[in-house]
């Protein structure tokens, strides 16, 4: 499913990289540990986290993630927003917590084992 469609269905706010919302998203990864995301997230994944600092964008860029969802109404730091815009990483926010947004995305992407 395209990131744009996910954003609309889950009512996410798009803060950066508006023109990079056509990426195909296959999965998501929920974690607040950067090394964990480095080790385990795959390309084309949406990263769900509460971390708001700029190193999140470095990881997202390096792992070629589809985008980052900040939970609990968290606002990114200004450098984070600037870097995300510069590196074309879509940064999205939601008022939901990590559990709820992960669950909704899980269902939306039809990931069942």
């Amino acid at each position, binding site marked *: 499913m395209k990131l744009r469609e996910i954003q609309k269905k889950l009512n996410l706010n798009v803060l950066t990289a508006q023109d990079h919302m056509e990426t195909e998203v296959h999965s998501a990864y929920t974690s*607040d540990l*950067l090394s964990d995301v480095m080790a385990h997230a795959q390309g084309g994944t949406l990263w769900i986290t509460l971390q708001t600092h700029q190193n999140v964008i470095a990881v997202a860029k390096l792992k070629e993630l589809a985008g980052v969802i900040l939970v609990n109404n968290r606002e990114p730091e200004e450098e984070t927003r600037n870097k995300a815009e510069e590196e074309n990483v879509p940064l999205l926010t939601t008022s939901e917590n990590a559990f709820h947004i992960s669950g909704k995305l899980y269902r939306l992407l039809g990931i069942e084992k």
Partner: protein
Amino acid sequence: MKNKENVLSQHYEINGGDFSNAGNISTQIKETLKELGIRSSLIRRAAIAAYEAEMNVVMYAHQGQFQFSLTPSTIHFTVKDLGIGIEDIELAMQEGYSTATEELREMGFGAGMGLPNIKRNSDQFQISSTPGKGTFLDIFFYLNQREK
């Protein structure tokens, strides 16, 4: 960038505490490997190791040098830093062990996965350190080897 006898080599300087540029070296190396058509599974492993090595310098050292070289058979990183060094390397290699400050942990660093991630993703890895002086990492990836 130098090209000599089929060897590509690039030198980078890292400043300790420079979080605003952290990750740039790994990203550049990854781009270079992509342009050269190195297979993606190997690029993925090299990028993880480069990132963790780069972050360790940013988090724990005053200053560091990252040397990247590519030959027809290997990708080679050496990372040398001036910093606090590591007291007990065996302990530092254990997943989950970290000496990160509370502040770094709140940022999502200090998972104790850095060195283990480097070891797991590389084909050959050596580490040596002098407490109070600094740390040296020697990391290799073999281009002509079956995937581990």
